[in-house]
Structure formats: C-alpha cells, structure tokens
C-alpha cells in the first residue's frame, strides 16, 4: 500500500516538474491572447466525453448534454460567465413583492432557427411543458412550483407559482422551443441559440452551424462546430497530440502537463463538490465523533497535490466558492492538513481506540475519485481506520450507493446548477437526494427559512448557518472543487469559462496568423 502512495507521489512530482513554475495553485480563469482582432468563419472540433442522453432540452439531464445544448437553446434568461443571469429571450422581467408572480417582457424579433419569430405562445407552451402543466410530469424539476402561465399581450407573459422562492428565477433558463415541437415526432431540435442543429450521430457527435439571425448581433464568430464524442481520456490525449481536436475540457493533471507546449491549457474552478461522502445512518458513522475523526484524519492539501497538482479549491461544507454571495470558508474547522492526534482522541472517545473497517465505494470510471481514494486509504490508516476501496461500475453505483444508499462511504462529485439551494437542499432529512442520510432538525429548519425568504441578504445568512451546521456535524468529509483544465488550440481565442457546465462556443474565434 505504501508503495502505491509512493507511486502517486512520484507521478505528482513528475507532473510538477513538467509543469515548471505553474503550480502556485491559483485557479483564476486565465485570459487568452484576445488582443488580436477576432475573425469570422472557420470550423472547430470540440472533444466531448459523453454521448447525448437526449436531444430534447427539457428532458436532457446529463451535464455533458446540457453543456452542448447551451449553444442551441436559450431560456427567457441565461447564465453568464460570472454566474449571474442575463436576459435572453426576455428583455426584462419583474417579480411581484410576494414572489408569486413573474412577468416577462419578450425581446422583440428573436428568431427560432426555423425562421419564425418567438411569440408569447411559444413561451407559454415551453414553460407549461417544462413545468409539467401539459401532462403532469415536470421535466425541469426546478419549475415544478409553476401553477399557471398567462399571456398578457403579444410581448408579455406572466408566470404564477405556488410558493415564493427567490432562486426560482434560475429555473427560467429552461429552453424556449416552438409551440408544439415537443410533440412533433420528426422535429429536429430548434431553438434560438447562436448555433443551429445540423446533425447528430450516436457515438460520433453533433454538428451545429452558425445561426445568422442570432439576436446578439456579431455573434457567433465560427461557421461550424463539431462536438465530437471521444471514447476515453487516453484516446482524447492521442487525438489532441494528433491535433484533430481543437478544444477539450476536463483534462487530468498529467494530460494537462503533456499538452502544455502545443495548446493553451487554461484552468478554472469546476462546479463539482468532491467529498468522501459518509453514510450517516450506518454504524459507526452514525456517531458524530467518528465522522469528525475522519475529517481530522484527512490531509486535504496532500490530496489536492497528489491528484490535482494542487490546483483544486479546498472546501468544507458542500457549497462552492464560485457561488460567492453564499459561500463561507470553513476550512479552519478541521484544518486543511491532518490532525492525527485529535482524530485518535475522538475515535477513543467514541469507543473505537483501535479503529474500525471502512469500505469506500467509488465509481471506477472516475479515475480522479479512484486516485483520491488511494490517498485517503493511506491517511485513514494512519489513525487506525482500516479502509478499503470497492470499485463500482457507474450504473451499479447509481443503484446501490446513490439511490439505494447501501454503502458506508463513497467518493464522488456532486455538481451544481447556479443556485445555492440546489447544493444544500439534498442535506435535508427527508430530501430524496439525501443519499448520505444526513439528519439534523436544526439544519432542516434553517434551510426552510432560507428557501422561503425573498430577502437575499437574509438568505445568504441562513445558508451560511446551514453550511456551518453541515460542517460542524461532519455530514461528510468535504474535500475540494477540483480544477477544470481545458486545452484550447493556439489558433483560437475568446473561450469563456462558466461556473456551470457550459461550453459556450459563441464567443470563440480564430486569431489571424
């Protein structure tokens, strides 16, 4: 076991050597050489890791699908690169004081890819479809509280919701599609985004082309984008080295090192909360002292260095630092390095002076989590906990661990959308997504208050308290938001990083040679 860790350490050292001086740990999205004049035209190949789970923007759930569909579909509002919302199909909106009525004014002359102008009818249809008013099944679960969509006039739509929630506005990023197209059996995907759909082939990818009538004049620059499905990280590396891919995100740290000379390799904070998730309902993890002991036993600086080249951002309570208004830094509570004495004391106090056996279930297709697991096993061993890794095929992990909750500990990443509530809602006692069985009446109470207030200042306050409780009760051993490293061809500029899963190709352009 020591040998394995040593191997990891060696590879970390090697990577650092390759990377030269770039290991200061900053993850500010770097700005590329955009001083050069943007040019129009050209075709770009973007390597993507997953096949599409659906071409229907309301039904698609996979992050890998949504990040591509972002280029084709738009909602009334859409996220920008700072994590804020900008108006898209709506040119303006107001929310009633009680938070129950949203009135959207539609932007004039926004066109669908089929040439038709977006009407209030289309918006009503899309929102009713997404919120489940059409057939009873909400396709976009954040919109489930919508009770009524009314057309006030040709340019105005009013949405009524059953309960007030200041975060609901983020739900209106849901795609607007032509009325009726959700039931039309032969419909190709049609939206209002900067690129229009050309073709999709399973296992090969999707091709989109420039939409000349896009409402943001001047965008996009590229004529065509080919989102090409790449089989595995290994073949991705070969294809990058062979220069058949222009843009590829989610590089491993060692890949990033290898590509440093041929590509612009940029890093940004990802929107993933990686943690050693602990099942709060099974012994001995049902004892808060044991969970705290595990938190103290982890040396997260070491984990970050070994598996991420030191580029991740450490976090302690399930909230992402990119959600700046809501994040509180709680890294001091358990410290970023290990405190073995404290961990051992807590274990003794809890009645486990000689430690215990712990099985860590990890979806084995995630190399990053597997490597993290190997480091953690060694760190836990140092305080007497005998941890073993059990690799799971992804579907089995979903069924047994995530949905079935039959596990002791697991290492995984939970992704977020743009709302703080999305990340924290799962830790309520009766949340269907509470796969760690965290249970704290105090937390439930604070979360409810946060959810129901329209006062953003107060909301941030409540969420801060919720994070504090989650960290204090050691709901899980939170580790980091890993860095997202992206390779971009040196011929391209204008690539933007988003705090959500998005590959926005509309601002990308070729620079003059």
């Amino acid at each position, binding site marked *: 076991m020591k040998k394995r860790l040593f191997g990891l350490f060696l590879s970390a050292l090697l990577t650092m050597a390759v990377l030269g001086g770039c290991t200061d740990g900053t993850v500010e999205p770097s700005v590329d050489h955009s001083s050069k004049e943007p040019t129009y035209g050209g075709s770009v190949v973007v390597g993507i890791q997953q096949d599409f789970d659906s071409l229907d923007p309301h039904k698609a759930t996979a992050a890998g699908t949504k990040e591509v569909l972002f280029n084709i579909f738009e909602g009334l509002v859409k996220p920008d690169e700072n994590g804020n919302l900008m108006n898209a199909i709506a040119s303006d909106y107001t929310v009633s004081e009680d938070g129950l009525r949203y009135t959207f004014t539609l932007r004039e002359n926004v066109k669908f890819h089929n040439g038709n102008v977006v009407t209030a009818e289309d918006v009503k249809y899309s929102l009713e479809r997404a919120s489940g008013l059409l057939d009873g099944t909400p396709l976009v679960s954040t919109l489930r509280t919508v009770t009524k969509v009314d057309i006030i006039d040709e340019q105005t739509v009013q949405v009524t919701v059953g309960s007030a929630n200041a975060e609901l506005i983020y739900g209106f990023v849901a795609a607007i599609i032509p009325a009726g197209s959700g039931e039309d059996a032969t419909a190709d995907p049609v939206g209002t985004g900067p690129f229009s759909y050309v073709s*999709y082939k399973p296992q090969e990818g999707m091709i989109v082309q420039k939409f000349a009538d896009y409402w943001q004049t001047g965008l996009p620059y590229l004529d065509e984008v080919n989102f090409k499905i790449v089989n595995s990280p290994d073949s991705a590396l070969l294809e990058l080295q062979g220069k058949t891919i222009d843009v590829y995100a989610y590089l491993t740290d060692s890949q990033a090192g290898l590509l440093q000379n041929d590509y612009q390799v940029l890093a940004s904070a990802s929107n993933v909360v990686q943690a050693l998730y602990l099942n709060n309902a099974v012994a001995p993890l049902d004892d808060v002292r044991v969970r705290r002991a595990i938190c103290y036993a982890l040396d997260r600086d070491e984990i970050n260095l070994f598996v991420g080249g030191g580029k991740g951002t450490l976090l302690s309570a399930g909230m992402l630092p990119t959600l700046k208004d809501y994040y509180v830094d709680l890294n001091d509570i358990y410290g970023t390095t290990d405190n073995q004495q404290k961990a051992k004391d807590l274990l003794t106090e809890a009645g486990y002076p000689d430690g215990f056996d712990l099985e860590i279930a990890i979806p084995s297709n995630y190399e990053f989590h597997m490597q993290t697991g190997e480091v953690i096993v060694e760190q836990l061993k140092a305080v007497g906990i005998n941890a073993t890794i059990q690799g799971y095929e992804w579907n089995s992990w979903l069924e047994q661990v995530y949905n079935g909750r039959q596990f002791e500990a697991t290492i995984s990443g939970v992704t977020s959308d743009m709302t703080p509530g999305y990340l924290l809602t799962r830790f309520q006692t009766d949340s269907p997504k509470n796969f760690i069985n965290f249970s704290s009446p105090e937390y439930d109470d604070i979360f409810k208050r946060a959810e129901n207030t329209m006062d953003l200042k107060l909301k941030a306050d409540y969420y801060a308290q919720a994070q504090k409780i989650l960290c204090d009760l050691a709901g899980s051993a939170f580790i980091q938001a890993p860095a997202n490293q992206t390779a971009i061809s040196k011929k391209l500029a204008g690539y933007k990083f988003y705090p959500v899963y998005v590959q926005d190709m509309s601002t990308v352009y070729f620079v003059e040679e």
Partner: protein
Amino acid sequence: MKYLGKKLFTLVMTLFLVSVIAFLSFEIIPGDVVSSILGTEATPEREAQLREELGLNDPPVVRYVNWATGVLKGDLGVSYRYSKNMNEMMPVAELVGDKLPVTLWLAAFSLIMIIAVSIPLGVMWAKSNNRFLDAALNVVTQTTMAIPSFFLGIMVTYIFGILLKWFAPGGYVSYEKDPWGFAGYLLFPALSIALPKIAMTARFLRNSMLKEMQSDYVRTAYSKGATKRKVMYGHVLRNAMIPVITFLGMIIAEIVAGSIVVEQVFGLPGVGRLLISSISTRDFPVVEILILYIAFVIIFVYFLIDILYRVVDPRISEK
C-alpha cells in the same frame, strides 16, 4: 439437404437460447436503463414516466415475448438510449445498420492483410532451410503474438499517427462523407488487428506444413518424380491448409463480430464500441440485436468452414 436442415435448426435454437440468456442477464445485473438515463438527477415522477414510455412496467416474460415477436416480424425495436431527433429514439435497425459497415470494412481490410501476408510467409518459412531466418521469424512472430491489441493499437497510433504523421489520430471520417478518407483511416486499425493474426497464421501454417512434409505421401510423390514445386503446392499446402482454414475461420468470426478493443483505441464507431457502450447504459434492445448478430456470425462462419473442408478435401463429405 438433410445436412442443411439440421444446420438451420441448430442455428435457430442457438439464437433463441442466446437471446434468452442475454435477456436474463439484463434482468440480473444491477442498475437499469432508467437510472442510467436520469443519473443523479432522477425524480420519482420522471422515473415513472420513463418506465412507462419504455414499457418497463410489464413483467419480464411479457417484455421478452413482445420483443421476440417484434424481431420475428422484422421490427428490431428502438434504442432506449440514442435519440434520432428531438422526440424520437433511434430505431435499432438504423443504428446498427449505420455502424455495421465500419466493422465490416475493418474486418475486410484486416482479413485481406492477414491472408495476403501470412500464407506466403508461412509457405516461405516452411520451405526455407536457413537457420538464421528461422530464428528471426520465430522471435518476430512470438513477439507480435504476445503484444496485447490495445497496446499495439496505441503503438500504431503513436508511431504512424504522431511520429510519422501518416494519419491523424481520431481523424475518422464517415464512409458516407468521404469513402477514400474512410479507407485511408481504416488501414491503421486494420494493421493493428492484422499484425498478431498474421504472426499466428504464418506460424500455424508453417508447423502444419512441416508436419505434412514428413508424411508418407510426400515421399511417394517425390519417388514418382514430382517436382518440389508440384509436391509443395499440389499436395503439402493443400493438406496443410485444413487446420489453417479452421484457424482463419475463428479469426474471421472474431473480427467480424466486432473488434471491440481496436475500435475503442482508434475511436471507430463500429459495432464493437456500440456493444460496450450499450451494455454500460443498459440499452437492452441494442445489446440483444448485437449479441444475436455475433452469435449468427460465429455459427455462419463455422458452417462455411465446414463447406470449405469439403472443397479442399473431398474425402470429408464421404465420411
């Protein structure tokens, strides 16, 4: 005729059994297509809706019978996982029909390479008395046979793709778009498949020929005054080919059924890769058809081998 009827019956029974076993294994393995599609975003409503849409609420027997009657009527069903457009899923026939040519062309290319190189090589090897050549071929073929195909694929990509730049890794183009570009790209994966098989076949042929050369009929032929050429090609090679045909048949079945590893390494969208991804996403209709296809190919190739035996050696049909 009786022979053909018997073969046909075996074929049908085997396919039936294979389909039942595949169906049952899908019932047993953990994780289903609904959780695969919805992932960590599943809500109870969406799960229920999807189960209904895919007809997963019926009992297993009903589902199997529905599926089987569909197939018998020529309807292969639709994929659970791959979309055709916004609202429809991809019909399995269309999906497999699109991927099959890739695998078949790849198989054809590698097969041509294997036969064109291994048979002359094997004959030459058997005929040569040069100890140095013998030793050299021994080492080369042993080594080639021992390299795992994924590693060979990576080496071929690295040497021909990245160092020599004879092809662009991952630069696969569809056969519909650019047939020549498609063929050019396929040469290298075909090479990765062919190399170890060439080594195996050449060795096999050589050994088989050496064994035949010891036979009495060879001495008789020589004593009757036949030339070496006549003896080698007319008698020895013909007899030595029988085990080689079996061996080649196994190779054909293997590569036509889908060169899973090589397709993965070179990013070829063939049936091997489709099978792997469909198993991991629990896309039952696709997996069933692919498994039936593989079973069919293997049974059919063995049937052909049987016939070829009779052509090469008429004595077999008399037995």
